[in-house]
């Protein structure tokens, strides 16, 4: 009986070397940096939990976003304001429990390093790991270009960028149907585009908007905060970009869990990823 499938190999598994040592090391270094930068960053934010647009912004200037606490009878209520919209966020934002007591605090203790209010220490952690993050990023970028990691693994092909292809991938992702067999050898187009947006968009923007807040760096490049509309705008964008990265991580981890957590974790630790051929999806 001659069918096109007759020549196909029987179901089998192949181990492929998916992540080079440098990619794996820089990935986990980045995980450490981003976690600490986020939590120490929220500690720093808590010192002045309001964001502004423009060159300046302080208590008497209108804020774009703020997290605060208001007296509500005998109790205190956490209030988060974005634009003209105020939402009660008691328990998490504005007011949260510290040592069993409702305490005014923008972000709660479990989201800050250290858990208690300590701006000086938060800054020490933030800037140490900012350096670590930048050096790690530079090594990774150099590798990405010179070892052709970006071109080989992350640059989508023209065929992958057609609306039909992207549309199909979105549908597949939504149904949690992930590539098998030959297609699983490479990242899919959504992955490639997302990783490129994070690597060349969000992460550099995080560093640049962070540098804009430094009065020393601003003396070197006064035009840089201008690009964003001023130091306070850059500070707001630092926060917005961080939010974007948190959303990326949430989706990224969800996809890792949904598409085979053991195989994914193994590949990012040992480098080897197992692909299944010829099995039912």
């Amino acid at each position, binding site marked *: 009986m001659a069918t096109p499938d007759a020549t196909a190999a029987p179901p089998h598994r192949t181990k492929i070397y998916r992540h080079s040592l440098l990619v794996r090391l820089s990935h986990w270094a980045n*995980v450490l940096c981003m976690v600490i930068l986020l939590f120490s960053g929220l500690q720093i934010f808590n010192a*002045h939990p309001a964001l502004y647009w423009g060159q300046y912004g*302080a208590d008497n200037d209108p804020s774009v976003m703020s997290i605060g606490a208001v007296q509500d009878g005998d109790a205190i209520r956490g209030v988060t304001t974005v634009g003209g919209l105020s939402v009660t966020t008691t328990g998490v934002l504005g007011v949260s429990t510290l040592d069993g007591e409702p305490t005014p605090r923008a972000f709660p203790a479990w989201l800050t390093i250290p858990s208690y209010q300590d701006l*000086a220490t938060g800054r020490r952690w933030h*800037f140490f790991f900012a*350096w670590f993050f930048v050096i790690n990023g530079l090594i990774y970028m150099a590798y990405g270009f010179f070892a052709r990691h970006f071109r080989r693994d992350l640059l989508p092909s023209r065929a992958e960028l057609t609306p039909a292809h992207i549309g199909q991938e979105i549908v597949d992702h939504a149904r949690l149907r992930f590539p098998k067999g030959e297609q699983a050898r490479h990242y899919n187009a959504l992955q490639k585009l997302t990783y490129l947006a994070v690597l060349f968009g969000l992460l550099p923007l995080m560093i640049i908007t962070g540098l804009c*807040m*430094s009065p020393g*760096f601003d003396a070197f490049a006064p035009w840089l905060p201008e690009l964003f509309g001023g130091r306070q705008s850059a500070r707001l964008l630092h926060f917005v970009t961080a939010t974007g990265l948190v959303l990326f*991580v949430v989706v990224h981890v969800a996809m890792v869990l949904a598409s085979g957590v053991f195989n994914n974790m193994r590949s990012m630790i040992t480098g080897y990823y197992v692909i299944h051929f010829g099995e039912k999806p």
Partner: protein
Amino acid sequence: MSRLITRRRFLIGSTLAASALGLSGCDALVQDDRVKSVLKIAEGFTMKTQRLLIGDNALAREFSESDISPVFRANGTSMPDNPQYIDLMNKQFSPWKLEVGGLVEKPMQFSLADLKSLPARTQITRHDCVEGWSAIGKWTGVPLGLLLHSVGLKPEARYIVFHCADEFEKTLDGSGWYYESIDLVDAFHAQTILAHSMNGKDLEVAHGAPLRLRVERQLGYKQAKYLMKIEAVADLGGLYGGGGGFWEDRGYEWYAGI
């Protein structure tokens, strides 16, 4: 740490590192002296890199009149309760004298009138508080370099220390007086001035009357208010907590360029 939180943090995407550190573990790590000293490496790194990039002379951006903040937030002490200061304030600072001494050839004293008669620089700059907020104001005052040239620094002088009239934290041992220090690069920088005027008027008490420091390439806590005495020193170890400033003694960076 409850199991619920561990699980939830894992699910929302916190990573291995976060779960490994944990909450209480984090604070223990934060308070470890060895960890603290390792983290301090970043400050030296930042200072060396920034000095390399900006050089000694690059200016902080100066703004136009229309950029000035409608309300310039007063921070730190806004009314010193030191009786000596209150007495000076009540006399419109006419008996007030700025003492300039330490490792100098010719210690001198300057009245407010003396300082106002010296050549002044006016600059509209952005004040960046370590907390995150910014305010733009116009400052007029004597370039610090001018005063230092007139008293003549001894060769061993490395830092300029600013002693203030406000005791920001009440302590039994007197370690709570506000003070600050900068090195000679910043001391002789063109925008480093001793400001006696703000936004075209005499400095208000809330902003540090009669005289405050402006070091425009660093954060707000370096801009010491209520100046009483300027001292040239060879090292900062012998003063108060040894960190070179009130906030530095409480964990903040001495180099506040970031």
